[in-house]
């Protein structure tokens, strides 16, 4: 009996322990289910992180060509220096040794150390620099056995074969900065990435950059790479075909920089710009700004001294004068004033004014450039000889707002979408503008100034070239573009054809008539003729006293105080093809300095 109770007892305990076994197996099963089924994704990700190291592959940046397929921006092979991250690496020692045999940039080293600190994994190549000269590379290569963790990778480097010729236009690329990342959320923070910082490189950065690829390396627990392959191919950036003609571009630049070619001594390059545009398509054939710079120094890594000399240069070589240089347009807008007058009907083709050299309004005197006056002349003659007094009278009759509207219609201070972010719109004042911005009412004296393109009025060379192109085209409101074969429909130019032809005829007389201001720049051709308009813009106001003493000749004035020389024009007369705008800062008179440059370039283009 006792034995039986005992037996029962041991079996009760046995079942208790068996239940414990069952529960334990249940717990294990649940644990496996939890790890393998419920949390599978998490562990799968961790396993892949163990298994693979992914690295980004930089896409090749798109190339830039001129309209005839000549290379303006390309990539060439270069070497980048990397350090492979690992535990217990004496980083400062390696960097010290490296910089003792090469010229490592301090900024590069600092950036590298930040990058290295933020690493979470070992055995990853950390980028140091791609700014090594061939000498540096061979120096390191020879002693590579001393740096077991240092290695090179092939990368691409941006080159601009045309150098300074296309400097402002193409721009340059630079290292990705914090600001770039803040501005553009689509950018990937990648140490070796360069993005467009200026010019076309900046404006078309998204297209040129392409899309990153990924390289996948399978690594074991000790960090040894087992396999390595391209996981996603990089998408190279798109190539760009610009409307620029490299020949004309370089010719215009040389013409602008060596104005006095006959003199043997060194002549400081003129500051100014030349813009040539196709009047039918709006394609810009040349877009030159002087002085310029060599964009390749930005690829190589500009040193602080070079940068300072560029920034502190009084002639501002980094400024693209063709698109962001704002000048008073001067007499070059007289066609627009004439058109405004003709369109509003305040003047006929043959109405005449008398110019005696000065216009008195109230107690103010407004002088014509011709001291003794042009006499009794009509509108066409006034344009031809650039009579100021005639336009003073005309401006007063038309009024500033109508002049402003016509200027807008012709592209000044209008919405021009040029493919350069440096583009700066000019200013065409109006009564409202004056009240809003200066807080005072518009005065008739200001209208007088504005009608010869002085005073508040400002415009850039692109705008002036567009204005000329629209007059020459007479049908469409052409818009400038830097891309070749960009098919865009232009709006109709809503100006009376007769009036346009009248003004165009007057512009032809400027160049081709003996009394015209640019007669000396008549083309050397019987069949092809150019039309145009000169402009000479006062930079400093000439006082009455100075005028009585006799105006000091331009040459004798301080450079900064000399007049700007302007010329706008188009050619040929019949079926116009090109419009041109030349501005030489402080170059003296438009007819002497600017018009001959335009003549040479047009001749190069057409003859």
């Amino acid at each position: 009996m006792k034995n039986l109770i005992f037996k029962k007892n041991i079996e009760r305990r046995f079942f208790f322990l068996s239940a414990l076994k069952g529960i334990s197996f249940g717990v294990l099963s649940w644990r496996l289910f939890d790890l393998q089924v419920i949390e599978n994704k998490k562990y799968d990700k961790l396993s892949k992180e163990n298994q693979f190291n992914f690295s980004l592959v930089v896409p090749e940046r798109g190339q830039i060509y001129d309209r005839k397929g000549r290379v303006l921006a390309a990539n060439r092979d270069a070497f980048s220096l990397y350090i492979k991250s690992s535990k217990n690496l004496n980083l400062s020692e390696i960097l010290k040794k490296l910089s003792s045999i090469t010229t490592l940039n301090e900024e590069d080293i600092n950036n590298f150390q930040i990058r290295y600190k933020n690493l979470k994994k070992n055995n990853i190549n950390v980028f140091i620099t791609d700014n090594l000269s061939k000498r540096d590379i061979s120096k390191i290569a020879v002693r590579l056995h001393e740096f077991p963790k240092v290695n090179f990778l092939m990368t691409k480097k941006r080159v601009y074969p045309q150098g300074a010729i296309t400097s402002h236009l193409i721009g340059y690329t630079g290292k990705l900065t914090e600001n770039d990342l803040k501005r553009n959320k689509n950018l990937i923070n990648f140490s070796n990435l360069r993005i467009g910082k200026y010019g076309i490189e900046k404006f078309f950065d998204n297209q040129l950059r392409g899309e990153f690829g990924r390289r996948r390396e399978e690594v074991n627990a000790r960090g040894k790479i087992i396999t390595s392959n391209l996981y996603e191919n990089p998408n190279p950036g798109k190539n760009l075909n610009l409307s620029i003609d490299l020949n004309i571009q370089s010719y215009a630049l040389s013409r602008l920089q060596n104005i006095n070619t006959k003199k043997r001594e060194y002549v400081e390059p003129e500051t100014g710009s030349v813009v040539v545009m196709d009047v039918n398509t709006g394609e810009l054939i040349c877009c030159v700004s002087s002085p310029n710079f060599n964009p390749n120094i930005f690829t190589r890594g500009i040193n602080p001294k070079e940068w300072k000399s560029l920034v502190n240069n009084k002639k501002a070589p980094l400024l693209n004068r063709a698109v962001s240089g704002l000048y008073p347009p001067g007499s070059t807008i007289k066609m627009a004033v004439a058109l405004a007058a003709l369109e509003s009907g305040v003047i006929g083709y043959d109405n005449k004014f008398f110019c005696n050299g000065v216009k008195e309004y109230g107690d103010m005197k407004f002088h014509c450039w011709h001291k003794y006056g042009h006499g009794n002349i009509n509108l066409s003659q006034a344009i031809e000889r650039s009579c100021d007094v005639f336009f003073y009278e005309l401006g007063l009759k038309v009024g500033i707002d109508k002049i402003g509207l016509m200027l807008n219609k012709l592209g000044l201070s209008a919405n021009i979408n040029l493919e350069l972010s440096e583009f700066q719109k000019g200013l065409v004042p109006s009564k409202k503008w004056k009240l809003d911005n200066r807080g005072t009412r518009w005065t008739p004296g200001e209208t007088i100034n504005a009608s010869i393109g002085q005073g508040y009025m400002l415009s850039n060379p692109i705008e002036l070239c567009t204005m000329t192109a629209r007059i020459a085209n007479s049908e469409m409101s052409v818009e400038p573009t830097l891309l070749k074969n960009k098919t865009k429909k232009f709006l109709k130019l809503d100006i009376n054809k007769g009036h346009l032809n009248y003004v165009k005829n007057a512009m032809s007389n400027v160049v081709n008539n003996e009394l015209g201001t640019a007669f000396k720049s008549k083309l050397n051709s019987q069949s092809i003729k150019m039309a145009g308009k000169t402009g000479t813009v006062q930079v400093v106001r000439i006082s009455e006293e100075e005028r009585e003493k006799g105006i000091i000749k331009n040459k004798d004035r301080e450079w900064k105080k000399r007049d700007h020389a302007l010329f706008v024009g188009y050619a040929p007369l019949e079926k116009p093809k090109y419009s041109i705008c030349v501005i030489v800062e402080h170059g003296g008179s438009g007819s002497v300095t600017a018009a001959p440059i335009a003549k040479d370039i047009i001749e190069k283009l057409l003859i």
Partner: protein
Amino acid sequence: MFTSNKFYKPDSILKNFFKLDWILLFVVLVICIIGVGALYSAGDGSLKPWALNHIYKVIFGFFIVFILSQFKINFIMNFSVILYIFCILCLIYVTHFGVGDVKRWIDLKYFFFQPSELAKIAIILLLAKFFTYFPNNSKNILYNLIAISLVLIPGFLIINQPDLGTGSMLILLGFAIIFLNGLSWNVILSITLVSLISIPVIWQNLLEYQKYRILVFLNPELDTLGKGYQIMQSKIAIGSGGMFGKGYLAGSQSRLDFLPEKHTDFVYTLISEEMGFIGSMSLLILYFVIIIVLMREFLKEEDFTNKIIIFGISFLIFLYVIFNIGMVSGLIPVVGAPLPFISNGGTSLITIFIGLGIIQSIRVSRNV
């Protein structure tokens, strides 16, 4: 003390052969084959260095089972005390002359002998003998204290090696048998209470580094480079296996050596990674089948001594499985416990086969 004149069974060997538990042995064989497959994978798709070696050991293991099944259980029990004393002596020996950095093994020229494994069999047999000789005294405290010290002596010797896993497994095994025999609930409750109260007092008196060691033991993830790393990688491997696994020979964690000791303690991780939840669960069920078969054996058995032995051995197998899978899946701390029939360990594999052999001996000795 021979209770029978014949220490072997004179009936024809062939007849005994049919008396073996073929279901049990078949399941064991299946698990062993899975083990060979897993070790082939652990060797990067090669029979060397582990898979072939494992085949030999398994064959040797089955040989032991057949040999032991030929002896009468009473004959085997004659050696229980001697075996126990032998194990204690060996354990003392290894602490002074053992090989390996943790001094667990005795170098026997052809293989390394690990006395702590054999001690598990010894404690089962000894306790069975002890409770048979002094039956039905389970309420007596002194009686239980003797039994407990019989367990604790080898237990602490092993923990002192230090081999916490094997030591605590042996102590748990011994306590389970004492509990089965009828240790009164009052004693159990008071022991639990005393240890719970003493924990904070002991903790207060520990040095900083000792506290840290215990903390790492309880939560290995504190030690990110050592055991924490191992267990994290093991969890990643198991979890990344998913439902169907990464495929045989295609486990990235083990192939790329992120998995430590994939041929011994972490072999279950490798199987889980390559075969997924389906594979790991199937293997777990196979082990469960063994436990169930042995439970049936327990219930069929009439003799008290044999009941204790069968329970002890089945509980030993259970502990191995729970310790190992619990460890690799991060449920319990890393203590070092092999997976029965699969891990490429020497003594532990043979120990379990000896256990199975003893059970077969009981079965064959039974007069059905």
